C-alpha cells in the first residue's frame, strides 16, 4: 500500500470509462481534481497544461464505494466491541468514540475500493446508540468524519434479548421501545436528560432511525412502529423483506441489505432482487467483520448474477447509500463539486474479474495495487 502523498494541487485522471452513476458512462473522459474536490468531469480526453496526469485510458473509474453498515475500526481483536449490553437503552452512546482510524483493518480495507462507511453499534441493544459516517482516510477529522452522529440504531433482533437484563422476550422488546419513544415524546424540557434528548429528536425532529430487522415479523413490527411514531427510518438487514416488499415500498422505507454472500440457496439469493424490483431503494453493506469490506462489491455482483439490474446494483454501492446516509452532497457519484473519492478498476465494476487498481480519497492516493 502506498502511503498517502501530499495532495497535489491539481490532478487529472484520464480514463477509458468513467462510471459517473448519475450522468451515465463517459468514454475516454477526464476528471479534474482540485483541493480534494472534483472540479470538472470532461467528455473529452484532453488534459489542461501543467496538470499532474494519471493516465488510465485503458481502465475504468467509478466513485468510491460506500459500505452502508459496518463495524470497521471499532475493535482491538477480531471480535468487535460494538455492543454495550449492560443497559438495554443507550441512545447517548456515540459509535464514533470507539473508532480508531489507524486500526489495521481500516488500512487493510483501503484495497477494497470502499471509501466511505456507516459505522454502527451492534444488534445487542434495543436502542443501541448513534451511528457515524466516516471515510477510511482523512488528514484531519474534518476530512474524515462526514457525520459525527448520523442517526440512532435500534435492534429488533433476538440478539437484543438477554437473560440478565430487560428485555427477555420479543413482546417485552417492543414494549420497551414503545415505552422509550413515548417517554421521549412526553418529556418536559425542564429536566435536561441527554438520553431522552436524543430519542426526542428521533420522534420529533426526523433524526434518522436505523432499525435492524431481518425476519418478516421483525420487519412488520418495525414498519408498525415507524408508522405509529412517524419515524424517518431505514431498515438494516431486511433479509426476508421480499415477502412484504409492497408494504416496505408503500411506506417508502429504504433498505440497507445484509451481505448477499451470507446466503447460499437460490431462493435467498433472489430476495434482494425482488425487493429492488418492487421499487425499494437498496444499499449494500458488509457488516464487517462478518464479511470483509472487499465483499461489498461481490454482494452487488452476486445480486446481478441472480437478476438484479446492473444500474441498480451500481447505485446500491454508491449513490443510494450516500442518499440514505444523508451524505450525497459530498460522495456517491462522480459529479462536479463532490469529493474526489474515486476507484480505478481494471474493468467493469460489476465483473468479478475486475481488480481495484487504485483508490483516491479527497484527492489523495491511498492505495495502489502492487503487482505480484
Amino acid at each position: 500500500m502506498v502511503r498517502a502523498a501530499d495532495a497535489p494541487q491539481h490532478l487529472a485522471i484520464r480514463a477509458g470509462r468513467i462510471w459517473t452513476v448519475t450522468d451515465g458512462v463517459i468514454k475516454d473522459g477526464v476528471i479534474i481534481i482540485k483541493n480534494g474536490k472534483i472540479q470538472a468531469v470532461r467528455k473529452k480526453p484532453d488534459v489542461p497544461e501543467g496538470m499532474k496526469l494519471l493516465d488510465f485510458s485503458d481502465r475504468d473509474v467509478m466513485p468510491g464505494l460506500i459500505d452502508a453498515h459496518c463495524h470497521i475500526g471499532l475493535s482491538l481483536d477480531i471480535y468487535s466491541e460494538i455492543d454495550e449490553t449492560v443497559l438495554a437503552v443507550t441512545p447517548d452512546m456515540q459509535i464514533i468514540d470507539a473508532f480508531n482510524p489507524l486500526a489495521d483493518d481500516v488500512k487493510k480495507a483501503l484495497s477494497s475500493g470502499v471509501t466511505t462507511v456507516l459505522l454502527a453499534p451492534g444488534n445487542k441493544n434495543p436502542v443501541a446508540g448513534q451511528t457515524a459516517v466516516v471515510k477510511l482516510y482523512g488528514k484531519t477529522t474534518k476530512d474524515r468524519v462526514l457525520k459525527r452522529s448520523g442517526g440512532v440504531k435500534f435492534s429488533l433482533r433476538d440478539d437484543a434479548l438477554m437473560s440478565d437484563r430487560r428485555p427477555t422476550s420479543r413482546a417485552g422488546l417492543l414494549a420497551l421501545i414503545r415505552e422509550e419513544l413515548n417517554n421521549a415524546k412526553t418529556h418536559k424540557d425542564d429536566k435536561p436528560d441527554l438520553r431522552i434528548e436524543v430519542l426526542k429528536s428521533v420522534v420529533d425532529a426526523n433524526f434518522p432511525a436505523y432499525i435492524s430487522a431481518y425476519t418478516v415479523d421483525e420487519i412488520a413490527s418495525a414498519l408498525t412502529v415507524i408508522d405509529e411514531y412517524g419515524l424517518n427510518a431505514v431498515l438494516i438487514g431486511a433479509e426476508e423483506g421480499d415477502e412484504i416488499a409492497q408494504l416496505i415500498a408503500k411506506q417508502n422505507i429504504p433498505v440497507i441489505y445484509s451481505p448477499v454472500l451470507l446466503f447460499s440457496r437460490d431462493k435467498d439469493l433472489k430476495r434482494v432482487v425482488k425487493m429492488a424490483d418492487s421499487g425499494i431503494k437498496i444499499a449494500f453493506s458488509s457488516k464487517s467483520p462478518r464479511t470483509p469490506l472487499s465483499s461489498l462489491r461481490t454482494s452487488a455482483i452476486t445480486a446481478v448474477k441472480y437478476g438484479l439490474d446492473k444500474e441498480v446494483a451500481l447505485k446500491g454501492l454508491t449513490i443510494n447509500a450516500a442518499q440514505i446516509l444523508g451524505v450525497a452532497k459530498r460522495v456517491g457519484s462522480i459529479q462536479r463539486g463532490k469529493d474526489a473519492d474515486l476507484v480505478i478498476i481494471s474493468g467493469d465494476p460489476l465483473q468479478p474479474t475486475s481488480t481495484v487498481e487504485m483508490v483516491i480519497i479527497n484527492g489523495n492516493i491511498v492505495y495502489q495495487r502492487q503487482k505480484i
Partner: protein
Amino acid sequence: MGFYLFMENPVVIGHKNIILISILILLFTFTISFASQDIAIKAGSIITISDNPIENGIILIKNGKIEAVGENVVLPADVRLIDANDKFVMPGLIDAQSRLFVMDRELNEGRTIEPELNIVDAIDPFIKEYREVLAQGVTAVCVAPGSRGLIGGRSAVLKLNGSKNVNKMVLKADATVKAAVGVSTGNTSSSLARLEHYSSIREALIAAKLYMQRKEKADREMAEYNRKKAEYEKKESGKETEKKEKPKRPAKFRTNPGSDVLVRILRKEIPLQVEAHRVTDIINVLRLADEFGFTLILDKCTEGYLIADEIARRKVPVIVGPVSTSFVDIPRLEYRNHNMSNAAILSKKGVKTALGVSGRDGASSKFITLAAAMAAANGLDKDAALRAITLTPAEILGVADRIGSLQVGKDADLVILNGPPLDIRSRVEMVMIEGKVVFDRKSQR
C-alpha cells in the same frame, strides 16, 4: 411388434392399425437408438483446459466418453447433434472443498484420530440442494470430514449425477484422508492445545509404522507357516513315516481398521490432506511429511503465500479456499491474515494450486466460478483460474483419468455456457454427465 401381431392374428389389418403399428415401431426403434446414440456438440468455443481453446469445433461423445474433440471431427451417420454454435463448452466444474450431500452436523466427530471414518457413510443422496449447484455447472465435488477431527476420516469424490444410490455417485472413495491442525474453536486458540495436535498425529503415525512392520512380519510368518504346513501335509500322506513336527500356527494378528488406513497413507497409497492455516502450522505439516514420507496435500493453506517458496520446493499441491472470507461464517483467528491473492502467489511460485469454495454449507459449492473469478481478479491468471476448478483438483484428487478436461477417453462431463465462464453475465445452459443431460435451462421454468 407388427410382425408378431401379424403372425398371432392372421386377420386382415386395416389402414388404421397399420398406421398405429408403424408409429409404435418407429417409437420403439427411436428410443432404442436414442439411448445408445452418439452425441456431437458443435460449439463456438471449446475450452479443453488441457490444450488451447478450439474455435468452432466439435466434441463427439460415444457411450458417455469423449470419443473425439477438435476442429474437424468426422461424425457418424446416426448422431444426435447439439447446436452450441455461439456458446462456450468446458469440462464440468469440480469443487474440491464441498459440503454437499452431507448434513453439517455429520461432518465432524470429536477432536480425535479416526482415519477409519468414511464420509461416504454420511452421504445423503436425497438432499435437494445439489440441483442448484448442478445448475451452476458443478459436476463433481470432493467431500471430506470437517475441521474438528485431527485426523477426521476419508474423503470421497462424488458426481452430481442425480443417482439416489450412493455407490453410483461415488467416483472415487478414499480419495484422501483429511486432517486438520491449528484450527481454533471460537475466538481462542491455545498454543499448548496446538502442540498437542502435532504430538497426537505424530504418535499415531509412529504407531502406524510399528503396526505396519508387525503386520508385515506376521504376514511373512503366516506365509512361512503355510509353506511348512503344506510340506508337512504332503509328507504325512506320503510313505515315509518320519517323525516330523507339526508346524505351529503363528498367533493371530489383530488388525485395526484405523491403523490399516494410516498404513496406506505411509505407503503413499492415499494422500493425507491436511488443513493448515498459519505459517507455523504449514511449516510443521511440511516437516511431518518429510519425517514420515507420506503424500501431502495442503488444504486451505491460508497463509501459504508467505512461504510459497518452501511449498514449491517440496512440490506439495495446495487446495486454496475460501478465496474470500465472505464464504465462511464469522472469520476465526486463522483467517486473520487471509489474502485474496494467495492462489495467485502460490501459482506464480510454481505450486500446483486448486481452488475450492470452502463455504458455509452444501449449496455454497455453486459459487465455484465466482471464487475462480475473484482469484483471477486478485492476480491469478484467468486460464490458471479455470484450470484450478477443473483439471488441477482432478489431478490432486487422483481422478484426472476420468474428469477435469475435455480430452479423448475421459468422461463426457461438461458444461455449455452462453458466454465466457468467468463473466458474471454468462449462464449455464446445459450440463452433461457421462453423456447424459442432467441439467437443461430450457426445461427449467
